[in-house]
């Protein structure tokens, strides 16, 4: 599967963003942003996961491989995990993974972890707007892409 993005005209760069959202918080937060009619870019493709710690480092890399320009992981605030401690583990893992990607020379702005609760629809929209603009400024993901995804 490839991340498709057919919206927008050809000349303007629209990034492809993959957002892994925890079912118990940020996924509901995205819902709330929607019901509150808050705008966030359609470039964000949400993937629902049962917990932020479900996100295997391989998922992040494979998202990049299949053409994503940025990957964001949203989970419950530390201390609020539905499974008590999942987000704590995710926090350590993602810190190390992001640090390694930085070590390999991948731009830092392409990855992010945010804690967004189910009540924070506004924060969700703000986070996504901010992340999309950061990634847009970075441009296309050239350093970590699979050339076979090029058309």
């Amino acid at each position, binding site marked *: 599967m490839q991340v498709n993005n057919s919206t927008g005209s050809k000349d303007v760069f629209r990034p492809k963003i993959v957002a892994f959202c925890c079912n118990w918080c940020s996924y509901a937060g995205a819902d709330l942003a929607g019901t509150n009619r808050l705008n966030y870019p359609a470039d964000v493709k949400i993937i629902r996961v049962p917990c932020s710690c479900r996100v295997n480092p391989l998922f992040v890399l*494979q998202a990049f491989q299949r053409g994503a320009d940025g990957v964001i992981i949203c989970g419950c605030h530390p201390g609020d995990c539905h499974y008590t401690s999942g987000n704590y583990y995710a*926090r350590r893992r993602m810190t190390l*993974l992001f640090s390694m990607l*930085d*070590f*390999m020379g991948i731009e*830092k702005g392409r990855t992010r972890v945010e804690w967004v609760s189910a009540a924070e629809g506004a924060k969700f929209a703000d986070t996504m707007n901010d992340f999309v603009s950061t990634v847009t400024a970075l441009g296309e993901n050239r350093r970590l892409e*699979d050339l076979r995804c090029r058309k």
Partner: protein
Amino acid sequence: MQKVMLERAKALLSDGTVRAVLAWEKGDFAYDTTPAVFNSAERLEKGFVYSPFCGANLSKYLIKETQKEGKILVFLKPCDTYSFNQLVSEHRIKRENVYVVGVECKGMLDIEKIREKGVTSLISASWEGEQVRLVTADGEILADSSELMQERCLCCKSKKHVAYDELLGEEGEVLDSNRFDEVARLEAMSAKERFEFWRGELSRCIRCNACRNVCPACSCEKCIFDNPDSGVQNKAAADPFEENLFHVIRAFHVAGRCTDCGECSRVCPEHIPLHLLNRKFIKDINELYGEFQAGETELPREPLTEYKADDVEPGVVYERGAE
């Protein structure tokens, strides 16, 4: 040293303490010693060797060997004992089926560095204080060991055995190693330079999987890279991305468990400095979550199976390092 080890192995084999001996066997050349299981004194007499080319870490072979009945004797160098401890705490090695003999190590030689010096037809090598005596078909050479040692031995982290039943030779100390210097040097580069550096190194990867097969921490019975449906299975990389992905994920899977034995870089036929990836994880763990040396003690809590409520946020990555 080799004589003492051989006598001890034969003694333990003959009095029935152990059923076999896991050690290094002579190859066709002085530098191609291989790990082998010896089950008789005759075989030991014929093939056993302990030379400055016995770099192989024998702990991983114990996973299979200790499943069998009876004790096996194994010779472990100081850095190998860390991997041994790690595997024991992961319940991969049956401790009661092993008789560990710690052997002293003065550092192992790198045949590539010897070749670069223009030395050919090497017959044997031995330690002489801080120097190395190379015996070749054309005569003997006395060389400075620091020029010929493997990279991992030049920045040796410990000469102390952390696990053994018996010790042959002298016990050393945990050393103050400068092994993170190279990682720090890379960290100080710009992102673009680092990207170029790793592209240059990793693009040579031929996906032979030697690094995975030799790694004592990579001991899963089913490896993700063997799954034909994963999209990342073992095959020649079709794309630069796959090399990055393979090595990042492989290093990540051993993060927090890697003892930094350096076997991955030793076996790499393309001489990719894979240990730098592992050391980057170790350095980050040390800096962010407190000093940790895998395998130092049995049954430690590993950094990635543990957490603290006030751990740093992943955003810390953006503030560290250059650019």
